[in-house]
């Protein structure tokens, strides 16, 4: 199949819009073309090479307060026509549910900015054999110590074209490249098996790829949890690594600040704008315009531009994330989206964050550890918090025991339980060091008063 250009995808979108435009109907078409080369790792060896190309078009139709959606992965004209007809049929069959079912007001041209660092032209010459070299580099670096067992991993490279057109005359397209890799497994020494753990990394730029570094980081992570033993139950301090902090606290905060969840009664952050929801040390900013950011793009899933936005500032909730539907429902009008329409071509735009920047604190990780009398370092927890009640409990994975300011040893057979709303308020310290976890830049945090339970 011939690689499709930005113009060809945009043409397909415009064809759908022209075909579906009738009086009383609003229509939007979002199209993609993508090509990928992936090398996967399995059981300490190269597993498979996978090459993939796909295209697709998502068509959204609004008709007197109702919405219909259809998607198709063939961009032939007949397939597009059929898909438009289906979307119109579904809109006609749906009961009207309100004035929020309409297209966004067309933003001014000046609001859009081409983001730098999203596309690396050298990706076009990056072949399967090049992906293989990077994958092997990661595997070898991880296995320099023979106790490290790589269960799985992959190196993925590719590029993508996104385009959107709608019946307000909007017409936009963008091309980006992406390189991402992960490695997962454990360490084994005799009968002693460490916790399962993983590392991952992503970038738009080939020059930033360093799979060996990630392989080594993974090896260090699993090796240091060999020889883990149980500990007794106690209530103490927990230092969350950036990974654990994002999984346990940041992700739920982003769920709770989605206007979709707020409006549908699924968020405890409803009516909490300008109220304190976390300790003063917590500041979260969402910004989809950062050059080179993995969550950056010129336009969101419904064609709206992004802008930097404060979500939580010094512990105070500042804003919800909106797409056009939630903005209208929330009284912000058809131009009120914050640019957080998210998703792929095959579904209706949802609400999602772009790049998250969690402000660094004023102490180093070492200082943080030395201030802990009795506690643990948490790298991962099995189980997710319930974002509705805030309750969580789970087994500590790759945990380390801290006593009198020193890391004593790895622990196993330990559970922690608590409530994310309490933990957010109990953040006592935030580290200067931060790690980039795909589109999130996050520090280590110290949380007080967590129940640590020996199983």
């Amino acid at each position: 199949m011939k690689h499709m250009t930005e113009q060809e995808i945009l043409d397909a979108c415009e064809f759908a819009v022209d075909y579906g435009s009738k009086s009383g109907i609003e229509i939007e078409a979002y199209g993609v073309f993508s090509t990928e080369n992936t090398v996967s790792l399995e059981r300490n060896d190269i597993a498979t090479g996978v090459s993939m190309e796909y295209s697709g078009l998502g068509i959204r139709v609004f008709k007197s307060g109702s919405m219909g959606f259809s998607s198709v992965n063939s961009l032939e004209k007949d397939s597009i026509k059929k898909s438009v007809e289906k979307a119109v049929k579904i809109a006609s069959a749906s009961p009207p549910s309100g004035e929020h079912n309409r297209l966004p007001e067309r933003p001014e041209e000046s609001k859009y900015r081409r983001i730098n660092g999203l596309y690396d032209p050298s990706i076009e010459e990056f072949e399967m054999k090049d992906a293989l070299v990077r994958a092997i580099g990661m595997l070898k670096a991880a296995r320099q110590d023979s106790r490290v067992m790589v269960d799985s991993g992959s190196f993925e490279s590719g590029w993508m074209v996104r385009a959107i057109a709608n019946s307000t005359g909007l017409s936009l397209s963008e091309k980006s490249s992406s390189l991402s890799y992960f490695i997962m497994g454990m360490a084994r020494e005799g009968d002693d098996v460490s916790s399962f753990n993983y590392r991952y990394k992503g970038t738009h730029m080939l020059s930033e790829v360093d799979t060996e570094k990630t392989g080594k980081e993974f090896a260090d992570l699993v090796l240091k949890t060999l020889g883990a033993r149980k500990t007794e139950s106690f209530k103490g301090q927990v230092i969350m690594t950036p990974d654990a902090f994002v999984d346990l606290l940041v992700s739920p905060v982003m769920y709770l600040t989605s206007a979709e969840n707020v409006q549908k009664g699924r968020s405890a952050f409803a009516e909490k704008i300008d109220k304190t929801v976390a300790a003063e040390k917590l500041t979260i900013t969402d910004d989809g315009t950062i050059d080179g950011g993995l969550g950056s793009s010129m336009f969101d899933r419904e064609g709206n531009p992004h802008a930097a936005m404060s979500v939580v500032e010094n512990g105070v909730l500042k804003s919800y994330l909106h797409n056009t539907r939630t903005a209208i429902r929330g009284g912000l009008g058809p131009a009120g989206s914050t640019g957080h329409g998210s998703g792929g071509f095959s579904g209706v735009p949802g609400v999602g964050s772009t790049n998250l920047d969690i402000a660094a604190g004023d102490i180093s990780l070492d200082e943080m550890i030395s201030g802990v009398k009795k506690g643990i370092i948490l790298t991962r927890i099995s189980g997710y918090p319930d974002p509705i009640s805030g309750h969580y409990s789970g087994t500590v994975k790759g945990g380390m025991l801290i006593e009198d300011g020193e890391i004593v040893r790895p622990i196993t057979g330990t559970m922690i339980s608590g409530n994310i709303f309490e933990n957010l308020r109990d953040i006592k310290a935030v580290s200067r060091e931060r790690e980039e976890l795909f589109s999130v830049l996050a520090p280590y945090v110290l949380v007080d008063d967590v129940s640590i339970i020996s199983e």
Partner: protein
Amino acid sequence: MLDTLKKAMEEAKADYAELRFQERDVTAVSVSGGEVDQASSSSSRGTGIRVLYRGAWGFGSTNSTKYEDILETLRRAEVSAKVASENRKELVKGIAEGRMARGLFTANVTGNLRNISIETKIETVLDAANRANSDGIATTRSLYREILDHKILVSSIGVEAEIYDSKPEFMVSAIAKESGVLVSGRESIGVTGGWGELFKVHSPEDMADSAREKAIRLSRAKVVKGGKSPVILDQGLVGLISHEAIGHTTEADFVLSGSAAAGMVGKQVASPLVTLADSGVSAIAGTAAGSIPVDDEGTLTQETVIIENGIMKGYMHNRETAHIFGVEPTGNARAYEYTDEPIIRMRNTFILPGDMTMEEMLEDVKDGYLLKGAGSGQADANAEFMFDVQEAYKITNGEIKELFRGASISGNAFEVLKAVDAIGRDFAYDMGAGYCGKGQPAKVDGGGGPIRTIVTIGGVHQ
């Protein structure tokens, strides 16, 4: 399309080639807060091609149906395999041959989903969400989703199968608010079949009522206290443990990576009462959501016994791992979309029912819990698991007492199965609305008879 695939296959230079054309139509309706969030229809079609070339795999996919594009995709897969082959330390030594499929395979359907109008689907979801709403309920949600598949599978060892599949699912949930705390109640079902099979056991109305009542009940319940305790686990939790905590460790690729089931064949891993199987097609598999007559390597599926009377009998295999272990492939190689390569996945995983009634099982429990409703959770390769439980009823002297919420269970799944001292006779599946994730989704199901055992209950630590 069959001829195009066969013509391309004849051009293969690889030692083995497998071509899978897949056409998929997905219709979904979701309602929340009393309004239609989205009603949608997605169509996709394309071909995934996998080759084995000098001991390494290559895979490629295309959404084009043209012969030249399919041939080019085959060539790309061959290049990928060649590049991998030159760099692999250990080469694939062979792929076992099982009972390979030829012919037409069609899911049994009552009420073909293509003949049920989009209006009916929207109305069913909207009605259920409205019905689940009442005083004390903050919000409700309901969704319907159907996956209709048409596949044509050919391979160079003579597989030539055409498959029609139909898998609908339905879910309704209610969130109750009591003194500032939000608690949800949820009912769901997913099957292989049509509209008739989907609502055969419970109507959408019954499920809406049940979700609402559960949410209200739970909102008034106290939070459970933790500790080790005798418990009776309902069919949903039995399915969840069978799938997540036991099943995954017995997938042969995980076994080769050193999962807890490695080296356990022939050993006592559970109570003699326990027989655990994973089934693609069998009497007990019935219309369960994970049923498939043929896997995506073209192997005819069957009932695969993993644990028989407490003894581990074998693992779940694709053709490659079956060759390594010297057994027949079990038909567990599955791919979700044409863009996915087949990997080892479960189908319907369950513990066979026993002979006891719930009353008999309760009788001997002096102080314990009846745990109902699977929630979210996680399990590790060492069979350690942690799952949320929807409802925890205290059992005192054989009688069901007060309801608690906020419970989770944890432990080592094999230890939990060793401690089983009773299995109930009421068999049910309860995982059909969900998906299993292993890099790609899969429709699976899980269930069993209820079991009596010992687990660690986690709750809010006081």
